[in-house]
């Protein structure tokens, strides 16, 4: 093939070896079928499909998720204004809930800077849904039904966050000091530097516990300090925990769900806390989504919501080692 002069200066796309898809056509057929099966699952339950924008003026507040910034202009020579590719459709979906949408789901592309590896691609497909009057345990049941109806995976275990730390690391997270958490981590893997309590808990979870999790496991009752946008409640011992759960299958983090926070003051307080943490860590400040805060103040119905990585679900179902094996084109080929 000959390249015309219009391609001059665009040699970055001339790595011709990478023209082919990273997944096989056979896998892409299964991918298409999975997307169709998921839509059938929600159609049968009367959950409405929505497609909120993936481009927004606000960005996620979470200090450890870096939204991609996009320059928007009214005309080519105009001064640009910043928009952000969404890292999840959460904020806009909650605004729909507050506006009276009822139960909704979205299955769309989301974007996260710098997340690249065996289980990460910076652009990936997220399935997110919200169920009115569900709490996080009812939603876990529905996640299990969805997984069972679109894959061969059944019989998901349920363990509290406290129980997995006891079982895998013999740590009582309600009593263990930060030093003990650090010591336990360093027994497994060398770590330089110091972290706060949640930093150590996250390191232990992602480096020491996750790789040992076999089969499918829901972990629930996260520490209140890791509530993100979940309600905080009391566990059976009266200790404050987040009404949050995650699903792991064969050590891969697959879904994250909450009994959703509906209090607009608390929502604003958490956004501000995230901004402060960003400032301490020298991370860029992002515009807070005040439209979400306003929507909550108008009243968001009691509901539970969950986000699930569709590419990872396909990886697990087809026993693929690398996420690129289930994507038409991974970032390197995009």
């Amino acid at each position: 093939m000959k390249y015309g002069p219009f391609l001059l200066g665009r040699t970055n796309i001339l790595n011709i070896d990478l023209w082919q898809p990273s997944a096989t056509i056979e896998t892409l057929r299964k991918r298409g079928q999975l997307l169709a099966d998921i839509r059938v699952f929600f159609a049968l339950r009367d959950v409405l499909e929505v497609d909120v924008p993936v481009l927004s003026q606000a960005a996620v507040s979470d200090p450890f998720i870096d939204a991609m910034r996009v320059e928007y202009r009214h005309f080519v020579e105009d001064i640009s204004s910043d928009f952000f590719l969404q890292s999840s459709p959460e904020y806009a979906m909650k605004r729909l809930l507050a506006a009276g949408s009822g139960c909704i789901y979205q299955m769309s592309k989301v974007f996260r800077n710098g997340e690249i590896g065996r289980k990460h691609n910076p652009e990936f497909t997220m399935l997110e849904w919200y169920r009115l009057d569900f709490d996080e345990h009812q939603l876990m049941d529905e996640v299990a039904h969805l997984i069972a109806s679109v894959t061969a995976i059944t019989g998901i275990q349920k363990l509290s966050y406290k129980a997995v730390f006891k079982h895998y690391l013999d740590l009582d997270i309600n009593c263990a000091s930060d030093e003990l958490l650090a010591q336990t981590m360093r027994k497994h893997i060398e770590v330089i530097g110091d972290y706060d309590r949640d930093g150590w808990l996250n390191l232990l979870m992602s480096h020491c516990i996750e790789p040992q999790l076999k089969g499918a496991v829901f972990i629930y009752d996260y520490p209140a300090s890791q509530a993100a946008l979940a309600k905080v409640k009391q566990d059976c011992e009266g200790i404050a925990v987040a009404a949050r759960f995650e699903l792991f299958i064969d050590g891969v983090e697959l879904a994250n769900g909450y009994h959703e926070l509906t209090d607009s003051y608390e929502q604003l307080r958490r956004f501000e806390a995230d901004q402060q943490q960003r400032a301490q860590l020298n991370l860029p400040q992002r515009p807070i989504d005040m439209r979400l805060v306003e929507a909550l103040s108008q009243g968001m119905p009691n509901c539970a919501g969950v986000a699930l990585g569709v590419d990872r679900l396909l990886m697990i179902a087809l026993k693929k080692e690398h996420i690129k094996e289930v994507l038409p084109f991974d970032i390197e080929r995009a």
Partner: protein
Amino acid sequence: MSYSANQLKNGLKVMVDGDPCSMQQVEFVKPGKGQAFTRVKMRNLLTGRVWERTFKSNESLEGADVVECDMEYLYKDGDMYNFMVPVTYEQYAVEESAVGDSAKWLKDNTTCIITLWNDRAIVVTPPNFVELEVTETDPGLKGDTAQGGSKPATLSTGALVRVPLFIEEGELLRIDTRTGEYVSRASKA
């Protein structure tokens, strides 16, 4: 040349705590909520130690100037092993600590892979197979060419290996240096 931790790849050599290290297993670890890390299993090229460390993904690491080069073993002089680059005749004196266990497979003119860090030899890797002569072993058992059973034999370099019972002193043997095991008899040139 410096790298951020999330640019690490298998086989890349970088400086860690002042020593050149080779990356053996690299995995990006990023929970949905939580910081990004690069978990690495690596080998210290000076000490041979293999261990795991997790780096913050934005941590920066200096590349290590490490190259591998084919060299011929010449002779031992005191504590130093002398090697030569066949193309340029350039000679390198290599310390005993860098030669390590490979010393027992070194015969004159054996071509080895020498790992150089800032032009200093730090690792000597012998060829996968070497042919060495038996200098000492119990007398062979005639006719016992197929049955199991083995005995110790000392080779010309001083290496001690297990050999089949039928092997005699003076025979040339083919040895796998990675396992230290006898492979077969070798024909004398």
